[in-house]
């Protein structure tokens, strides 16, 4: 216990994390629905992918510490702390993710492009993009901050396109060049406006990054930032959409010893993909890249080296993690899930504080009543019960505080209720034990043997009954969702702690106390006074019995 408490202070988490209903904020429960014809779509993998996407979106708003987690089989809980724009967050959470494959027209560094910047071509990533064996590769141009200075600013629509085409050399660079094969159809005015937008776009700003592609239809060209914010793109109309992806996964290529991401397309998707790759593979870098854009952010922009159709591989300098992330994003586009808002709870900080306070007051009142009752009935023994309750309380508090950072446990109102109800369960264990001790004393034993003899029997009863209580909590926790879970968790935790406290604290303390004169001598205030308990005077009496006194009535 000391170690635990010490651990709590060491870890610096000295208060339990508070749930939305106590701290204020907005909590949204989303329910996944599988799309028609794909009943098995709601599974762990898909849900986890959805969580990571939603997390990316919500936190992309500049919301700090929003948490997104799955709950039960088909729910996702999004908790947004107070002080953030919850309306905007809700909008983000509620809409379906949009994944598109768009041809890259221009690439530049993340900051607003300086006018007339000189260097014609940035160093790029230096990754040879022309790996012959790779069907498509990710040069990671997007994520390389060195690519910042670029001549992107001067590029203007078609004219420049032509110039750059001539200009471009097959160097493995991936910086700022442009090509607009698809933009040709768009009117010049729109192109110019887009160019301007592109020039001004500041991808280092989170909010601007999220807003970059707002309200753009898939069939229009757009500007977008890389998800890290260190590069920006001018993108052509979407050629392939996320729903065209059938499956994507990260793989380790044994031969080359690198991580890569492989994609499978649906029938319709592979035709579209064939068209776009055919077009792109004839282009020069960077116009031979296509951007994988998720919710308006470019998560990856691989180059295309040949015409592809049904399946494709993206290679590059992936780590296992980044390959899996990309695969997740890709498969989310194919995720046959849609989400609906099931509950939205907004709690103001004031009400949250009030509820917390009310919970604490209720707990204090409950505890006080229990203590008064115990003192009235058990006198001195109540001291031991009280000490045990305090020990149990400290343990519960400590574990809750530690579980906050460890497993994301947040104390909410039902959890507080659970803890208060648990006072009764914990106190009951003492009552069982005390009653056993008193029974032994009534048998004429002195306290010390009574304490020892009562223990094994009380222990069994306590274990059996706590087991049932724990079983109830465990079942509740596993099969329910939402608020019920918080309650079940605390109840289960406190039941376990009850066993720990009774075994490791109450029993030893009781044994020690039995040695003191106050308890051992059966002081009237100890609650163990043999006379008051109506113990028979210890002794060897004749075996003659007056059986009538205790003869139970006939059944």
């Amino acid at each position, binding site marked *: 216990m000391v170690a635990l408490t010490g651990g709590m202070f060491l870890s610096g988490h000295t208060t339990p994390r508070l749930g939305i209903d106590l701290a204020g904020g907005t909590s949204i429960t989303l329910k996944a629905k599988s799309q028609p014809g794909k009943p098995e779509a709601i599974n762990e993998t898909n849900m986890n992918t959805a969580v990571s996407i939603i997390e990316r979106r919500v936190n992309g708003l500049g919301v700090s510490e929003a948490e997104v987690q799955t709950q039960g089989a088909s729910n996702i809980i999004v908790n947004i702390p107070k002080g953030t724009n919850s309306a905007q967050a809700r909008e983000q959470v509620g809409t379906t993710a949009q994944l598109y494959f768009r041809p890259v027209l221009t690439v530049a560094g993340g900051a607003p492009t300086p006018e007339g910047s000189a260097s014609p071509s940035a160093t790029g990533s230096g990754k040879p993009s022309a790996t012959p064996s790779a069907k498509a590769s990710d040069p990671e141009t997007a994520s390389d901050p060195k690519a910042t200075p670029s001549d992107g600013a001067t590029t203007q629509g078609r004219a420049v396109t032509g110039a750059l085409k001539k200009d471009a050399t097959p160097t493995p660079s991936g910086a700022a060049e442009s090509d607009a094969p698809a933009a040709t159809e768009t009117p010049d005015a729109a192109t110019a406006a887009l160019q301007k937008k592109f020039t001004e776009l500041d991808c280092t700003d989170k909010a601007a990054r999220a807003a970059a592609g707002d309200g753009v239809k898939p069939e229009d060209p757009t500007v977008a930032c890389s998800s890290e914010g260190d590069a920006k793109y001018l993108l052509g109309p979407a050629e392939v959409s996320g729903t065209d992806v059938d499956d994507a996964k990260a793989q380790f290529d044994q031969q080359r010893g690198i991580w890569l991401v492989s994609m499978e397309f649906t029938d319709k998707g592979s035709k579209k993909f064939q068209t776009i790759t055919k077009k792109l593979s004839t282009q020069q870098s960077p116009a031979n890249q296509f951007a994988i854009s998720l919710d308006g952010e470019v998560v990856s922009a691989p180059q295309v080296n040949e015409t592809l159709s049904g399946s494709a591989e993206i290679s590059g300098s992936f780590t296992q993690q980044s390959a899996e992330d990309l695969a997740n994003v890709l498969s989310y586009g194919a995720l046959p899930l849609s989400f609906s808002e099931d509950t939205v*709870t907004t709690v103001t900080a004031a009400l949250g504080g009030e509820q917390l306070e009310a919970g604490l007051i209720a707990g204090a009142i*409950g505890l006080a009543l229990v203590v008064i009752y115990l003192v009235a009935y058990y006198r001195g023994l109540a001291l031991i019960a009280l000490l045990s309750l305090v020990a149990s309380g400290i343990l519960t508090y400590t574990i809750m505080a530690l579980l906050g950072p460890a497993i994301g446990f947040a104390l909410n109102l039902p959890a507080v209720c659970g803890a208060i109800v648990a006072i*009764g369960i914990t106190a009951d264990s003492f009552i069982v034990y005390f009653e056993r001790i008193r029974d032994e004393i009534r048998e004429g034993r002195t306290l010390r043997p009574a304490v020892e003899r009562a223990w094994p029997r009380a222990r069994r009863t306590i274990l059996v009954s706590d087991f049932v209580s724990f079983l109830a*909590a465990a079942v*509740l926790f596993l099969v329910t969702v939402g608020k019920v879970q918080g309650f079940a968790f605390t109840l289960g935790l406190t039941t376990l702690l009850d066993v720990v406290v009774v075994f490791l604290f109450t029993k030893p303390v009781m044994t020690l106390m039995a040695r003191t004169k106050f308890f051992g001598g059966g002081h009237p205030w100890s609650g163990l006074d043999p006379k008051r308990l109506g113990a028979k005077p210890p002794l060897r009496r004749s075996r003659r019995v007056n059986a009538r006194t205790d003869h*139970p009535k006939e059944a």
Partner: protein
Amino acid sequence: MSRLGNLGARLYRGEVGYDFIGKRKIWYGVSILITITAILGLAVSGLNMGIEFKGGAVFTTDTKAKVSVSQAHEDAVAASGHEAIVQELGNGGLRIQITEVDTKKADQIKAQLSEDLGIPEAKINADLVGPSWGEQIANKAWAGLGIFMVLVVVYLAIAFEWRMAVAALIALIHDITITVGVYALVGFEVTPGTVIGLLTILGYSLYDTVVVFDSLKEGTQGITKQTRWTYSEIANRSINGTLVRSINTTVVALLPVAGLLFIGGGVLGAGMLNDISLSLFVGLAAGAYSSIFIATPLVADLKEREPQIKALKKRILAKRAAAAAKGESAEDERDDLTDDLTEPAGAVVGQRRQPGGHGRTPRNRR
């Protein structure tokens, strides 16, 4: 206190006691009556389901609104186009409940209300629930209930025996029916908080029952080896012996819940605290009642059907008849016979294997 202590002692020794088993028919009757009332109430008035089950919105204001409750009601109806329930809370705030609006529309209503009531939107708490949510919660609760019952019956059947498992299950269903019935009759609103409370009763009701069964199991060890007490008699002693504990446990469990109820109902107005504690309060009371008056008598009833126990009862009754005929002289004989018995009076203590002599057993007291 001393009187209470004495009562405890006398209960323990079986000097005083209520014949729970003997009067079981009365209590069965009472329970059946209550259960029928509960079911009737459920059938007639039905449950008042909260918005969590129907879908809708609840708005709560932190501060006192500038308008009266009736004005707020009109505003709410105008803003939503649906019937609204407006309550004033203990802290002066308002609680406005509107059913059957979807989460999208609720936002507009919130904005409108904020304007009408003169309270900034940031100071309005909103609880929006889609219609499918309640169904989901309810389904999960039923699933939980089912799984728990199966597990508990299996566990009790292993730890004790199937008769006790059956009796505990009946007591459990009894408790839940009563609680639900009270909700239907009184018209309390059913919310997820209520469901939480109800599910907790599962654990608690059994917790109490298990403690009584535990002592019953101890008391009836080696019952067939003696001819002094019938199963029912021992069961009755078990109940009486643990009566003090049962009462204490129930009181101690009810006190914190009462604290919750007081704070939840008195200070915060309606809310989660109130809902949980209300159903707990009703359920706990029903649970304590059923473990004493229903579960154990049921076990005794079931047990008495067992051939062995039946035979035992027959032997005992015959013996008593004979003893009564012989009069006082039977006393000694009977006492000797009980020496090899595991101490029926020790139902609470049990397990003691020593011969019952040497003044240890309560019945040896003069």
